[in-house]
């Protein structure tokens, strides 16, 4: 049972300021995911919690203990590494028992815990094998097993699924989620994969260049990104961005871009009023674009030319050009369109995003 608190956390290497003023309150039993592109500081943050990196400034508390000066072994955490980090010279059993042996647990207790974990993970038959004889998925299961036998206060996952092939990754993702629901241990999970972040996290922390960009529940990040980076990072295919100018009178504002002209819905009008005469970034998610039908109102429709057609079976990704702007639309698989065909697209007016062009903050 433990919450994790990070207060004004900073990490500086000689020339790199890797983690900047991170403040984060991870609740007890919460599954929190740190996500961001490589070099965003997510792994460094995790490693500071583990005690593998020194903290330059700030504080980390696990439970109600500040752990800054505690050696890793005494922090009551268990970590799962991307490359599994299993000892090749030990059997699966010995790998899983290693941490308990080091902590001088009695043999029967070690046996009980390893058996228990092996059953949860379905690896009872592998206990006598060496890691070399296991597949990638099995190895990762053992690595997770090694963490859970310890009954730690916090699980730390450092990109644990990144070495697995796509199919296995999806399968293990579901298993990890199930495991967390069963064990209810606080978990911090680092990944660069936004799909993993969205599916696993109770809350997701998006990081970039050492800064936290946004902390929120997955859907909150998706529907209400606080800035252009989060908007573009979360969601696949990524949100479309169009540079537009805000024009018109207060009653009826329009967003005028090259090749695109859209009315600004009344819901956004108040906030966009001050931007009249200025340029802003318009964001449209691919699923908020569809082929225009009779019901679509004229001010929310624009013309484009099909550039690439990507049929995915359940849907078609339509890469189109509207003037100089490239956009992706997610359309029904029954749509029959060829490259260079003209197409009339409509937007979902309630789901438009606007960002300040300079600060990149959501308007």
């Amino acid at each position: 049972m433990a919450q994790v608190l990070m207060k004004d956390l900073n990490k500086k290497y000689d020339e790199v300021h890797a983690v900047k003023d991170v403040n984060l309150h991870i609740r007890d039993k919460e599954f929190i995911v740190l996500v961001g592109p490589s070099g965003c500081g997510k792994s460094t943050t995790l490693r500071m919690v583990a005690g593998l990196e020194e903290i330059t400034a700030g504080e980390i508390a696990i439970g109600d203990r500040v752990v800054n000066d505690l050696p890793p072994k005494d922090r009551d955490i268990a970590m799962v590494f991307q490359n599994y980090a299993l000892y090749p010279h030990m059997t699966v059993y010995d790998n899983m028992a290693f941490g308990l042996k080091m902590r001088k647990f009695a043999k029967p207790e070690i046996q009980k815990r390893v058996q228990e974990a092996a059953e949860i993970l379905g690896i009872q038959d592998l206990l006598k094998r060496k890691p070399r004889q296991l597949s990638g998925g099995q190895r990762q299961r053992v690595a997770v097993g090694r963490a859970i036998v310890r009954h730690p206060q916090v699980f730390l996952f450092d990109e644990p699924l990144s070495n697995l092939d796509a199919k296995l990754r999806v399968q293990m993702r579901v298993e990890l989620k199930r495991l967390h629901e069963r064990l209810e241990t606080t978990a911090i999970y680092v990944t660069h994969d936004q799909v993993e972040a969205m599916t696993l996290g109770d809350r997701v922390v998006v990081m970039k260049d050492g800064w936290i960009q946004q902390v929120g529940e997955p859907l909150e990040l998706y529907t209400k990104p606080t800035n252009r980076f989060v908007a573009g990072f979360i969601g696949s295919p990524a949100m479309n961005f169009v540079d537009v100018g805000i024009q018109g009178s207060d009653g009826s504002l329009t967003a005028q871009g090259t090749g695109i002209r859209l009315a600004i819905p009344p819901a956004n009008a108040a906030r966009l009023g001050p931007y009249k005469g200025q340029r802003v970034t318009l964001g449209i998610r691919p699923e908020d674009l569809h082929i225009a039908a009779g019901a679509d109102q004229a001010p929310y429709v624009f013309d484009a030319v099909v550039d690439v057609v990507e049929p995915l079976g359940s849907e078609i990704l339509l890469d189109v050009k509207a003037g100089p702007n490239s956009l992706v639309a997610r359309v029904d698989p029954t749509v029959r369109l060829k490259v260079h065909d003209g197409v009339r697209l409509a937007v979902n007016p309630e789901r438009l995003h606007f960002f300040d062009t300079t600060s990149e903050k959501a308007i």
Partner: protein
Amino acid sequence: MVTAYLLLAPATLLLVTVLAYPVGWEAWISLTDLSPLNDRGAVFVGFRNYVRLLTDAAFWQAAVITVGFATLTTLAKLVLGVAFALLLARPFRGRALVFLAVFLPWAYPASVSVMGWYWTLSPPIPTAYAAFMGHLKGTVDHAIGTGAWSFLAVTLFNIWRGSSFIGVLLLAGINAVPPELFECALLECRSAWRRFWLVTVPLLRPFLALAVFLSLTTAFADLANVWLLTAGRVVFPVIGTQAYWLAIKAGQFGAASALSLMLVPFLLAVLLLLFKAFDPPDEARA
């Protein structure tokens, strides 16, 4: 079928030329009385050379010294080499300089550095230092036996040079191990000593085995350094110097070959023992 053998031919030819032929020739010579001092050709003498060696006290003395020398230097080099490797494995200020200091004894030409050692231990110019070293030599020789000082010098030189090499070899080994394996141990165990024995040593096993093997073979075959460092006044003979004496000074090619070949079973035994350890630890099948 024929093509396969044809394709194998160059490699086979090479092996025969550089390995099988010299070894075979030496084995044959060891069974004869070949000597440049004889006008006639070599005469087959059976195992007489071997029998003579085995009953010769000088051989046994050399054998004991060689084994002692090899064991002692290998142990010392391993301990120092591991220490160097562990020291250099983690980043710290001035690491490049320390690396240079560790690597230099190996990188420096042996013939030059051995002269440096020789002059350090037996200074050529009479100074107070030379007198001191002379006194030290006298004391050591008196306490342990004549030649002890020379033996000590050879041993020190071997350790000095070899631990540098083993340090660099093991550093490469440590760098080849994913850092997570060491980090994971750090999360579970606070005692550096236990981590070393339970994790570092098993992970470095192939590299340690290679280091032991190289150290033993070079110690067994060491002739040049012993010769250079003692200026030919070999009071503590090793197998290498014995064989050199027999072949070059005494002209007894047959006996010298037999002497060299006496080492082979011993080295083969060591190699067989180490052979299993050469496999990376993850190759083992449960």
